[in-house]
């Protein structure tokens, strides 16, 4: 009898960067993990720029700083729409917004994280006090619960999520180093296809099951991406 305990599940998830970005087409919605470039999947972003896709909708907490990580997608005019919580350190965003080339929806950072989590967890929306009485609430419904008012924010999902991890095993289990986990964790749950860039691809068992942060069942493709800034 074949039982599931005989041997580890086989993985064919490890692909080249080119194979990975073949899953991203112009016009798609793409989530990219990271915070000010820290935890961006740098190699995959480079390859996406090289591939020449356009009219992307990008969901990312920020647009990094000029020349670093996701900033390149802005600078190379790959985006049509952007959901972000902060764009102030990348001047190209304001330029393209003012020129009418880029539509930007600003979203409080905690709400953005929670909307993505809701998208990945099958929840209908997020009921948050954040944004009430501000421009963020414009046009959005509110819900009264036990005498308190909450803003109803809708879930966010993407066609493809591009995430980054420090150690990723061949089944896609991810361990994040330092502050790189940021939005990568929720984004891994909220896209039809999840591509994870590994600083280090490690053997099965190299990450104790207690220390896995993103379970491999969420990851479709793994790219060995190398290391940002050495080591």
């Amino acid at each position, binding site marked *: 009898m074949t039982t599931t305990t005989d041997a*580890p599940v086989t993985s064919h998830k490890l692909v080249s960067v080119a194979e990975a970005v073949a899953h991203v087409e112009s016009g798609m919605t793409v989530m990219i993990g990271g915070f000010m470039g820290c935890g961006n999947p740098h190699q995959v972003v480079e390859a996406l720029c090289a591939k020449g896709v356009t009219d992307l909708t990008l969901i990312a907490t920020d647009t990094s700083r000029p020349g670093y990580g996701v900033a390149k997608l802005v600078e190379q005019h790959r985006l049509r729409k952007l959901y972000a919580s902060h764009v102030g350190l990348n001047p190209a965003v304001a330029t393209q917004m003012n020129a009418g080339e880029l539509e930007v929806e600003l979203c409080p950072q905690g709400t953005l994280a929670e909307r993505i989590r809701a998208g990945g967890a099958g929840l209908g929306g997020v009921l948050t006090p954040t944004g009430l009485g501000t421009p963020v609430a414009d046009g959005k419904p509110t819900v009264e619960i036990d005498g308190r008012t909450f803003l109803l924010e809708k879930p966010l999902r993407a066609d493809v999520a591009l995430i980054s991890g420090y150690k990723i095993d061949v089944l896609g289990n991810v361990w994040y180093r330092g502050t790189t986990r940021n939005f990568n964790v929720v984004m891994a749950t909220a896209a039809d296809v999840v591509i994870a860039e590994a600083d280090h691809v490690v053997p099965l068992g190299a990450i104790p099951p207690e220390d896995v942060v993103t*379970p491999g069942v969420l990851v479709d493709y793994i790219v060995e991406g190398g290391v940002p800034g050495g080591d």
Partner: protein
Amino acid sequence: MATDRAPVLDKASLDKGTIREIIARRVARELKDGDFVNLGIGLPTMIPDYLPDGVRVVLEAENGIVLAGGCGAGEESPYVVNAGGQPASCQVGGAFIDSATSFGLIRGGHMDATVLGALQVDQAGNLANWIIPGKMVPGMGGAMDLVVGAKHVIVAMEHTQKGAPKILPACTLPLTAVACVDLIVTEMGVIEVTPHGLVLTEINPVFTVDEVCAATAAELTVAEPLGSML
């Protein structure tokens, strides 16, 4: 190694154990290599024993194991149990997760299939499997989330309860979820829940179509050709 077909038997040989094996073998063929799967307690836990060669599934224990495994005698740990509260293990390449994360995977559509038993199923795919008012009130556990969230919901059960049909025009017991069941596998056959009602797609050749219909309170459309479930 598993043969992925059950032997054809005569009706007299259909004891409890054989019935369970027939059902488990057939459900096993619904699973694809790499599927992320949650199996209810009881009969569904037999399914991994019958997976076709080359098919490995990633079992979840919804209390917190991705790639759950069994536990040999003497290997029990108070730190690792499965969703039935029994000693279990996490296989190499698996992960331990908390309950919110676990049900995020379940509710979020990340689970390819769940297989579980039923008290009643009806032709709209409604499922009742958690409560008999005035009698059994154990609680729904994770079942309601599982049947709402999994991509494929497979009911694996005996066709009747002491001769009384369990596949009904409309469930009479309180529901576990509405219109959630995709496939019903019993010892008599395989029934798909479609927008046009229940379709018998495969039959256990020891039964006639008339016998299956007689044991089913809901109307059954019989597929042509009608396959064998064995």
